[in-house]
């Protein structure tokens, strides 16, 4: 397949910052990030001043910026912790967004080369996805691969890829019970594959390392499912899992693709899984209801944009999950509010920067 040339000015790298000292993070990522424009969102709950090294093209948004743009107080509440990054998606003007957690550094591939997470995500997003039939040689658009015998020719043009889900070496994205039971387990397996997650198949999308086409699906990446005791460790949240499943339903409905696999990031050691067990147990329980819901939700033909889809999903959430737990009713409302906010921000002139 032809080499993909990345148009640097089509990309925003959005980082939600939960740790004030960004020095080592930014230095580790300098070889990859220095080409691109960065949007840094400071967690509104973070009190300390951010420390960011020189030499990057970036904009920083803090609590005051968020509160200026996001007037309804519920949205402001939702944009703390990991969810602060959604503000970055809201204000970005670019086509592609790459978002990484601030406790990740670049990984190295099997040959020892630094993984350029941005280029790989953009490559995934700018080559077609193939959700309607599984290719056993994985992504057929990768160099050295193709569609295998038996793959229908009519399905070989694929569809636009809207979401690229990357993976993690070292600390994998396990939930608290799993990590607590296997405290020493680290992911050292570098799987050299990108594959399309088939249509109608649900998956847990981890927010740690993603890329997406903001023009196609931007409004569907939203802060909605907030746990009562949500914390600042990934295994104390499920907001990205919720958002990812909404996104998969949206993509399936709009005939867009979702890829999973490369690129990898290296996730640093952090937190105590056993301590976190208390906070995230709620999330683990909720998944039992959430997954069957998303597997069965159907959208109408009238839903032709990501916004339309989100609104319909929100209504279904309110009707079917709302009665089960107030967290769902709040999530449904947050989704509706977010879509409204997205429309408002889109029609205004670009918000001023810090």
């Amino acid at each position, binding site marked *: 397949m032809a080499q993909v040339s990345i148009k640097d000015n089509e990309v925003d790298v959005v980082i939600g910052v939960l740790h004030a000292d960004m020095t080592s993070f930014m230095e580790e990522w300098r070889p990859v990030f220095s080409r691109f424009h960065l949007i840094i969102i400071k967690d509104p709950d973070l009190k300390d001043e951010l420390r960011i090294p020189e030499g990057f093209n970036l904009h920083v948004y803090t609590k005051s910026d968020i509160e200026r743009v996001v007037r309804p107080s519920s949205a402001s509440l939702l944009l703390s912790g990991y969810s602060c990054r959604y503000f970055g998606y809201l204000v970005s003007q670019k086509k592609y967004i790459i978002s990484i957690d601030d406790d990740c550094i670049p990984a190295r591939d099997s040959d020892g080369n630094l993984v350029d997470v941005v280029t790989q995500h953009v490559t995934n997003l700018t080559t077609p996805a193939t959700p309607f039939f599984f290719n056993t*040689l994985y992504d057929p658009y990768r160099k050295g691969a193709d569609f295998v015998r038996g793959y229908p020719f009519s399905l070989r043009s694929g569809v636009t890829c809207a979401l690229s889900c990357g993976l993690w070496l070292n600390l994998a994205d396990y939930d608290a019970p799993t990590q607590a039971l296997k405290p020493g387990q680290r992911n050292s397996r570098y799987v*050299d594959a990108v594959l399309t997650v088939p249509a109608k198949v649900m998956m847990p999308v*981890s927010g740690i390392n993603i890329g997406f086409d903001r023009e196609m699906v931007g409004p569907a990446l939203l802060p909605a499912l907030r746990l009562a005791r949500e914390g600042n460790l990934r295994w104390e949240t499920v907001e990205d899992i919720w958002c990812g499943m909404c996104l998969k339903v949206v993509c399936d409905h709009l005939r867009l693709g979702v890829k999973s696999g490369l690129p990898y990031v290296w996730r640093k050691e952090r937190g105590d899984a056993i301590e976190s067990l208390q906070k995230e147990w709620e999330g683990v329980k909720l998944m039992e209801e959430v997954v069957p819901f998303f597997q069965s939700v159907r959208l109408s033909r009238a839903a032709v944009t990501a916004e339309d889809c989100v609104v319909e999903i929100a209504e279904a959430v309110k009707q079917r999950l709302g009665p089960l737990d107030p967290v769902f009713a709040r999530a449904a409302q947050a989704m509706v509010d977010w879509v409204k906010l997205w429309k408002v921000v889109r029609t205004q002139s670009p918000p001023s920067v810090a």
Partner: protein
Amino acid sequence: MAETSVSPTPLLKDELDIVIPTIRNLDFLEMWRPFFQPYHLIIVQDGDPSKVIKVPEGFDYELYNRNDINRILGPKASCISFKDSACRCFGYMVSKKKYIFTIDDDCFVAKDPSGKEINALEQHIKNLLTPSTPFFFNTLYDPYREGADFVRGYPFSLREGVPTAVSHGLWLNIPDYDAPTQLVKPRERNTRFVDAVLTIPKGTLFPMCGMNLAFNRELIGPAMYFGLMGDGQPIGRYDDMWAGWCMKVICDHLELGVKTGLPYIWHSKASNPFVNLKKEYKGIYWQEELIPFFQAATLTEECTTVQKCYIELSKQVRAKLGKVDDYFIKLADAMLTWIEAWDELNQAEGDSTELPNGAKK
């Protein structure tokens, strides 16, 4: 929670048969000797039955040529292809074992990135003995592999998985491309070792290649009919595809799992793309009808065994695909013949293919 212990993989030497179709010779077995010698081989000789196929010393095997197939099946032998490796499914039928591993005679031992030789059979056994997870995609691939697990967000109620019926391996060097792709990319070689096994999700179809394949014969055997190909047939090189699509619909219905990925073998021989094109030609058009057919195929609650599922599928093939070409009517007949022959030869099994709590959609 996924299994954490690293116990050695059982050999299963008395529970697994290796089925090999061949028309040339079996020299390739020398390279596999360290891995295959403990096992019983079923060799299905295609082509001229008067040719003597030399089997390397030291292997325990039974060999069937066309005369044997005709003798054993009588008129039902019509369902077994002639002059096509599809004849291998005769080997599945006569086997008495729980597991089958089938491999082509131009497939050799591959090496992993560290240079170590890959014991493909051992990996297939691992795949078959651990559950599959078809209901929700795990982004870290097979959660039962050492060093992996279910990721955050994966519902605990789905972590037991379902029994694995099929393990589909891959190939380094000559990739399994169709003729048009081979013609356009004659030099392309698969050099990418992807260190993953994954479950093909429920509701998702895939092209199953028969070159490096293992399955649980007790769970899914009757669905592994490789169709009517080769001599006297309008199509070739779609035997494994056909079996794979039927199999997947049935596995989805009976809640059995299908894995793909490791192990790799080294595929050494590129078949002639012009010969392939002639064989595949009709298939390339027909698959445009076949895929929607299989994607839409549903089986009723009454289909609680593989045989019942297969018979029901054959009715749908006759009714819907019969309109595409008369070949499918012949194929539907052959599917029924296959099931009759299977049941006759496997009478002793009785209800072993029925799942304990019956399958429901």
